[in-house]
């Protein structure tokens, strides 16, 4: 695994700004398209990062995303200093959600976010503690298995 990143980007994720939510993911998507990355990998990256970004907007009172592209992988680190998660195992469960009603009215908050990030990542780590924010690490390899 090479340790030198080719591209490094940092994005602000503003709190409660639903018209801008997804902008960071959209930028990364554009970047990967320009780099000629396999569309299936771009889609997995987009979904994972967009879900993580939405979580920061909905639950985390805003935060940041750091994206590093290596020769063989994409590493995404999304973090906030929001209220944190009390029970990560429970939060990972499909259908479990603490999102308020207005988020559900926007079509989100169905409790699929974290499991969907995991499903689309090759490596997924989440760290959180009540009062200490949440950190999500996503790794996606640029070469699909079997290639």
């Amino acid at each position, binding site marked *: 695994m090479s340790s030198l990143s080719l591209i490094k980007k940092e994005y602000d994720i503003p709190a409660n700004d639903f018209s801008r939510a997804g902008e960071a993911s959209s930028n990364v998507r554009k970047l990967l398209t320009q780099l000629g990355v396999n569309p299936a990998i771009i889609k997995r990256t987009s979904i994972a990062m967009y879900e993580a970004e*939405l979580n920061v907007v909905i639950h985390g009172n805003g935060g940041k995303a750091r994206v590093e592209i290596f020769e063989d992988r994409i590493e995404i680190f999304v973090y906030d200093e929001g209220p944190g998660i009390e029970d990560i195992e429970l939060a990972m469960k499909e259908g479990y959600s603490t999102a308020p009603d207005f988020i559900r009215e926007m079509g989100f908050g169905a409790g*699929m976010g974290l499991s*969907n990030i995991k499903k689309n990542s090759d490596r997924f780590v989440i760290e959180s503690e009540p009062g200490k924010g949440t950190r999500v690490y996503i790794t996606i390899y640029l070469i699909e298995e079997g290639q």
Partner: protein
Amino acid sequence: MLVSQIKELIDGEIHTCTDKMDIDIKSACGADLMSDVMAFSKENAMLLTGLVNPQVIRTAEMMDMQVVVFVRGKKPTREMCELAEEKGIVLLSTELSMFTACGILYKAGILGKGSDCE
């Protein structure tokens, strides 16, 4: 099926990307819950929804969906149209209900791919 044919079948109004009427759509997904679109709909190029907010366009973008149809007479806002135009996503609207719009398109040959979001 071409977007122009889809527009005719559901008596749709086109809001963006009028130059993309010749996109060929083979499968679609109908949902008001964007969480489900992202979790279950992997291969569909068209979304039918009754939900109207900018995150619908973002979701379509992330999912590589080229066409979004708003059902039940809902119309996209100007902000949504601008975002869709920028992303090259065709926005259509129809007075038909979700069930009827999906039924007409399914009968005409458009399929649903992926598990729960068919």
